[in-house]
């Protein structure tokens, strides 16, 4: 058994940043990073567009806060937003000092670009592979610290909780197939989102909500799970992300008549050059809804993978595309055979981000002593009912640092967990895993079948437009799938690198996350941000200006509510 002061699960942007923050506080702290993949494979790597902070004179912290709160449809906790915008600039400059290759202005300063829902240019970028550069910079910098120990390819299976305090995690060491207990005084969950509960997503295979489900099972609430962001521009078929930066640089969205349709939905007037917060730089939830309405009017294209519209970049010219959007050009050429210099790219809305997650306060603390969470897996709430593009990468850094520092400070005040208690808990976990997965015999359901049915149910009931009937049906279907999951067949009996058992774990976690999403959505009888209902189409501040909390029970989630923290921005109508 390994024992550390801080055990961080997840080696993406938030996890690495938390580890570095803790490592810098004291060389005597022992910090573990437990990840089911090597850190440079984490999904942070796919982020493209940029990361926002107030760095220029024409900008202000209040403006960034207002944009964020407005974009969140007033469901964001304003104290969290204020802390976020204040700490964001320092975090991005720190990244620069660590070597991040930000794109630069001629005078040598870091460049900023326009992004959806932002009033001014404040999104820093590294060409159009910002997440890639951020992740690699953090990973390479983390190698400096001898007190950060990595447990690569260790799959989290549960949190160890003794006497109301978290005391570590159990994981499966993929190389041996055995349970690896990693004990710790504190645990920080940075396991990312769960987009793979949907059939069509920008998310990588690994985004299965593992940490969210683990916290949920340990009695921690999942907050605001119903808010799932659809990114308006993903490639049809694969769901591969085409960054918002392509619209920030001036790209146009056109329906099948070649018409810039966003002007019909209150986002006009259409201008040749992008105007902040208007047209193609509107917030993501509104743009995705516009696409669906165009579909309802029969004005979208129809292709082998369903409906799509055009993202036209031709007027930007080859030089700008090669300089600012080279990865977009590469992706479009490779995966849909389109060169955006000469032809418009086919795009459609695709599940991208979960605003909801493990409920934390503004210091990344959860309701379970010693447990923290940061990044997409957490819900502070910074992003409320809808996230603005380029706030997420910054969120990883700001709240990753907060989680690392808070956990480190707490770890120095408490004693190491008792080995006997941990051994007992670990033995229980080994028995559970043997029974349900590792030594499971028989079964007749294929893992892929249950997974696909879950994804179908989520698409039907928890998509862009929701109603009572469809959501109820989805909740029921998920309960049935939970039962059927007990009957899965596991063909791979090997212990070395058994990825079939891994996909079974992931499906197990995803079913929990999906239930939290669907049930939270069913109970929220209003439309706000990315949660849009055809039966309750208006925002209802009187009854629903509050966060949804989903608690796990054997029969499904129990829903409670938590008020939103309002400091200086009173809710108003959200018009762009």
């Amino acid at each position, binding site marked *: 058994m390994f024992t550390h002061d801080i055990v961080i699960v997840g080696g993406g942007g938030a996890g690495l940043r938390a580890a570095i923050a803790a490592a810098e506080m004291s060389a005597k702290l022992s910090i573990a990073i437990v990840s089911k993949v090597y850190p440079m494979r984490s999904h942070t790597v796919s982020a493209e567009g940029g990361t926002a902070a107030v760095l220029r004179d024409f900008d202000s912290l209040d403006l960034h806060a207002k944009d964020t709160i407005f974009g969140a449809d007033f469901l964001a906790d304003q104290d969290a937003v204020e802390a976020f915008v204040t700490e964001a600039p320092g975090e991005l*400059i720190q990244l620069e000092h660590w070597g991040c290759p930000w794109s630069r202005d001629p005078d040598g300063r870091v460049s900023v670009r326009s992004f959806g829902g932002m009033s001014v240019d404040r999104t820093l970028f590294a060409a159009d592979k910002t997440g890639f550069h951020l992740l690699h910079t953090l990973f390479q910098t983390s190698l400096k610290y001898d007190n950060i120990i990595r447990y690569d390819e260790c799959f989290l299976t549960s949190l160890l909780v003794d006497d109301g305090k978290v005391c570590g995690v159990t994981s499966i060491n993929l190389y041996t197939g055995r349970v690896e207990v990693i004990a710790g005084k504190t645990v920080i969950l940075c396991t990312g989102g769960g987009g793979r509960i949907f059939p069509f997503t920008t998310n990588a295979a690994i985004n299965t909500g593992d940490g969210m489900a683990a916290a949920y099972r340990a009695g921690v609430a999942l907050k605001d799970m119903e808010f799932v962001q659809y990114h308006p521009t993903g490639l049809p078929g694969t769901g591969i992300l085409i960054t918002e930066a392509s619209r920030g640089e001036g790209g146009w969205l056109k329906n099948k008549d070649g018409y810039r349709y966003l002007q019909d939905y209150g986002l006009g007037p259409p201008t040749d050059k992008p105007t902040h917060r208007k047209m193609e730089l509107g917030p993501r939830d509104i743009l995705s809804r516009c696409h669906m309405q165009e579909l309802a009017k029969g004005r979208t294209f129809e292709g082998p993978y369903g409906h799509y519209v055009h993202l036209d970049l031709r007027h930007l010219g080859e030089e700008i595309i090669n300089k600012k959007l080279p990865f977009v050009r590469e992706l479009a050429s490779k995966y849909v055979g389109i060169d955006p210099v000469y032809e418009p790219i086919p795009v459609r809305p695709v599940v991208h981000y979960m605003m909801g997650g493990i409920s934390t306060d503004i210091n990344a603390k959860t309701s379970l002593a010693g447990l923290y969470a940061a990044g997409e897996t957490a819900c502070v709430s910074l992003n409320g009912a809808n996230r603005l593009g380029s706030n997420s990468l910054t969120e990883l850094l700001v709240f990753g640092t907060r989680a690392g520092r808070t956990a480190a400070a707490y770890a120095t005040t408490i004693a190491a967990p008792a080995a006997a208690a941990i051994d007992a808990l670990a033995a229980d976990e080994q028995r559970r895993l043997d029974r349900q997965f590792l030594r499971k015999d028989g079964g007749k359901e294929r893992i892929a079948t249950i997974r696909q049915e879950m994804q179908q149910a989520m698409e039907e009931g928890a998509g862009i437009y929701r109603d009572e009937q469809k959501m109820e049906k989805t909740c029921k279907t998920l309960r049935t799938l939970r039962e059927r999951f007990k009957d899965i067949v596991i063909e791979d009996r090997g212990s070395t690198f058994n990825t079939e058992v891994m996909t079974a774990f992931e499906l197990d976690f995803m079913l929990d996350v999906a239930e939290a999403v669907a049930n939270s959505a069913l109970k929220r009888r209003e439309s706000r941000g990315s949660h849009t209902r055809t039966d309750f189409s208006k925002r209802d501040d009187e009854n629903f200006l509050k966060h949804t909390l989903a608690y796990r029970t054997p029969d499904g989630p129990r829903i409670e509510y938590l008020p939103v923290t309002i400091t200086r921005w009173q809710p108003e109508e959200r018009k762009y």
Partner: protein
Amino acid sequence: MAEPTITLNVTRYRPGQDQAPTTQAYAVPYKQDWVVLDALNHIKDQIDGTLSYRWSCRMGVCGSCGMMVNGVPKLTCAAFLRDYYPHEIRVEPLVNFPIIRDLVIDMSDFLDKLKSVKPWIIRKEEKPVAQGEYLQTPAELEAFHQFTQCINCMLCYAACPVYGVEPKFLGPAAIALGYRYNMDSRDQGKEQRDVIGNHDGIWDCTFVGECSVVCPKDVDPAAAIQRSKVDTTKNWFQSILMPWGER
């Protein structure tokens, strides 16, 4: 009319069970825009759940899915079935690495080497964050930018015959990363990256050049290595002829 299919001949290796790797043939549906990774996922989901391989982003940026496709190191998320159809496709784990299981290879040597080049900014004095960013012109960024693009997919190690016969060789990606930091105007740590100039570093390289040919991100590690040779040689002469000068 039956759906068209294509056959994949995939390496299988189960430690403890198999003495040596074997090959298993699978017939998968042929779809025009499927990549080899889609075919592998189909096998795992519908035909044989025991096949193990790594993958994640499916868009060529995470570096997980590198394998040998018909003897050429490729990202399987970027190898389209239509480029091979109707012929059979051989899918094998990356060569020059020990095999853990099926198509999964052991990367720990690579990660050790990555760390050994000290891939972080090293400075004599750090500027406080409150004072803002280090200024760096677009031209200074251009000088090392291409070498920042490495996704750690290790196709270059699979292509390098030197790494195959001499496992102590630092290798293309690690050296290119060290070079990236040496060329970054903000870095001052060239002397500390001495592992690059050692005899298992750049001097093991005989410029076969295959690393740059297979690199999916055009990092051109071969260029980084040869330029490092020129740099190191220049520095050595300078230190001999002008020992009083600052390097």
